[in-house]
């Protein structure tokens, strides 16, 4: 699978805005045809995401892990890898964080830092395996990461039931010392659960930008992603970069898991199925053109729609699944670059000459 640099280059902010608008339009049409009132629905949606401090806080909390999983997917894409395993790395991140939070006894702040780091390392470890198998054995990372997602889910449940508890459904609440909850911040948003994780997410986005475009490591990662043959020719270690890229991607995913656990949930429960946050990261990253800023913006949109969707269902009785349709439509419009297409139709017969000469 080739690197998705193309959409990044072509998608301007304008394209994205038009696509978002068209996507909402599609959702609206669906609502009208099913006999719902889209205006009322959308008002309910955006109202709930923005109107009260509590809801703003909760919206930010929803956005937080999406930024991180989006970055995880985006970084892998940048280096030519498709990490469908963010979901599994997310779970392992949660697990590692909760283990440290419960099993270690450390002073406040330090405890939280160690737990976050453990989560990041857990994610990295879980991503190391597919990276290694891809680099050394040529095993397609899509298969291994899909398999590892399932394994992570069962492993987490097993650990919670057999080791962290005595056969219970969920672990104890993590101690205050390991929590990412920050009272001041929470109070600011009317005691919503917005937590320190949002800062981790923002820093991670900056880190991704800095890493990829300002460092020698990033130079290599991008070169390997664009053209492994030329990178090999230039003396870069392609295998090592593939493994590294997966691991950094895993770090982001693990951070997402750790911050969700330490900031939002406070315990790890036995899960019947995936949270979906990792898979949502794929969509977030693609819409954001795999660039850090784009990912932050698209995660925000996704978070607003997700959080608001619940209120939409409540107030306007519109099934919130319509949000998924809206998002699918937005991705289609961005990917097919509808704006450019329309512009081209206007100019007529204008063929992009840059696409030739392959």
């Amino acid at each position, binding site marked *: *699978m*080739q690197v*998705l640099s*193309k*959409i990044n280059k072509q998608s301007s902010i304008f394209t994205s805005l038009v696509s978002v608008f068209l996507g909402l339009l599609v959702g609206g049409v*669906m609502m009208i045809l*099913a006999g719902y009132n889209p205006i009322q629905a959308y008002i309910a949606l955006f109202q709930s995401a923005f109107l009260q401090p509590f809801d703003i806080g909760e919206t930010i909390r929803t956005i937080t892990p999406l930024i991180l999983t989006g970055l995880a997917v985006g970084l892998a894409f940048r280096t030519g890898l*498709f990490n*469908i395993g963010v979901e599994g790395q997310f779970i392992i991140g949660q697990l590692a964080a909760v283990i440290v939070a419960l099993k270690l006894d450390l002073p406040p702040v330090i405890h939280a830092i160690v737990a976050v780091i453990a989560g990041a390392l857990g994610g990295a470890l879980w991503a190391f*395996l597919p990276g290694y*198998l891809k680099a050394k*054995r*040529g*095993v*397609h990372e*899509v*298969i*291994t990461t*899909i*398999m*590892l*997602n*399932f*394994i992570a889910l*069962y*492993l987490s*449940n*097993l650990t919670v*039931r*057999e080791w962290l508890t005595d056969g219970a459904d969920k672990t104890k609440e993590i101690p205050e010392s390991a929590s990412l909850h920050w009272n001041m911040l929470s109070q600011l948003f009317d005691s919503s659960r917005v937590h320190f994780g949002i800062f981790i997410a923002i820093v991670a986005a900056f880190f991704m930008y800095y890493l990829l475009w300002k460092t020698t490591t990033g130079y290599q990662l991008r070169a390997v992603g664009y053209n492994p043959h030329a990178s090999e020719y230039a003396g870069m270690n392609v295998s090592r970069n593939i493994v590294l890229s997966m691991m950094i991607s895993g770090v982001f995913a693990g951070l997402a898991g750790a911050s969700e656990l330490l900031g939002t949930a406070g315990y790890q429960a036995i899960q019947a*199925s995936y949270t979906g946050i990792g898979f949502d990261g*794929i*969509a977030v990253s*693609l819409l954001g053109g795999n660039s850090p800023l784009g990912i932050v913006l698209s995660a925000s949109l996704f978070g607003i729609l997700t959080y608001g969707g619940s209120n939409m269902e409540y107030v306007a*009785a519109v*099934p919130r*699944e*319509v*949000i*998924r*349709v*809206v*998002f*699918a*439509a937005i*991705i*289609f419009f*961005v*990917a*097919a*670059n509808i704006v450019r*297409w329309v512009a081209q139709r206007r100019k007529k017969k204008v063929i992009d000459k840059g*696409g*030739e*000469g*392959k």
Partner: protein
Amino acid sequence: MINSLTDILATTILYMTPLLLTAMGGLFSERSGVVNIGLEGLMTIGAFTAVITTLETHNPWLGLIAAMIAGMLFSIPHAVASITFKADQVVSGVAINFLALGVAVYLVKALYEGAGQTPDVQEVLRKMPIPGLEKIPVIGPALFDVFPTTYLAFIIVFIGYFVLYRTPFGMRLRAVGEHPQAAETMGVNVYRMRYTGVIISGALAGLGGASLSIAIGSQFSESTIAGQGFIALAALIFGKWHPFGALGASAFFGFAVALALKGQLIGLTNYVPSEALSMLPYILTILALAGFVGRAEAPAAIGKPFETGGR
């Protein structure tokens, strides 16, 4: 002992059927050069449509046909985006997954007054024993007393192989996936072949979804498919984009699941936690890939948008 073998074989067959149908669908799309991450979504829409249609018409066969048609319809946006608009095929496939699950669950809620799942289908597809053959020891009950969709899956593997490797259509489809420019200079319409490949994938993945919802199961909910489409995608790659490879990979996966279940039934859970057994199929798949399968050769032009006259 014999009984256990039959049992393992039967579970293998049960589990592999939807995977195999869907992987065969993916095969047609990817052989034509279009990556199809959207198999999961196409299965979802197939499963949904099959249930709805069967509930309305009380005829599961109509359900199967409707599932195929719905799969085809839902594959069209993927085809249009990735072939005509030259959008990134992975992106478009991801969008299909979102769209399908969104539309299906939205409609379930809208149709059944907010319900999370459809009512139960009474007229599900029943197992169809083949007289005589089902009496063969060990394999008889496992292979010849199965769902019609299972027979269908096996038939489709052979037809698929035949079509791909013995007919002009198949040769052109493969040529388009390997070297579209070459095919074009030979007068093959690359766009049409790719559209056909993607739409066939929709039909078969729809069928795969239907086999889960109205043969093995009897209703549709958000979790009916739950990752089966992704495993089918893995089976396709594992099977090196070949019909018999896909058959082998699906069978392997089904077998691993069967082993894990059998392990529970013979009381292994007294020594090993049941979650560990549940992980087994996935671990075995990774080991198999890392151990002996190794590098898979994808169709050469997979994922690359095609432009007429380009080189």
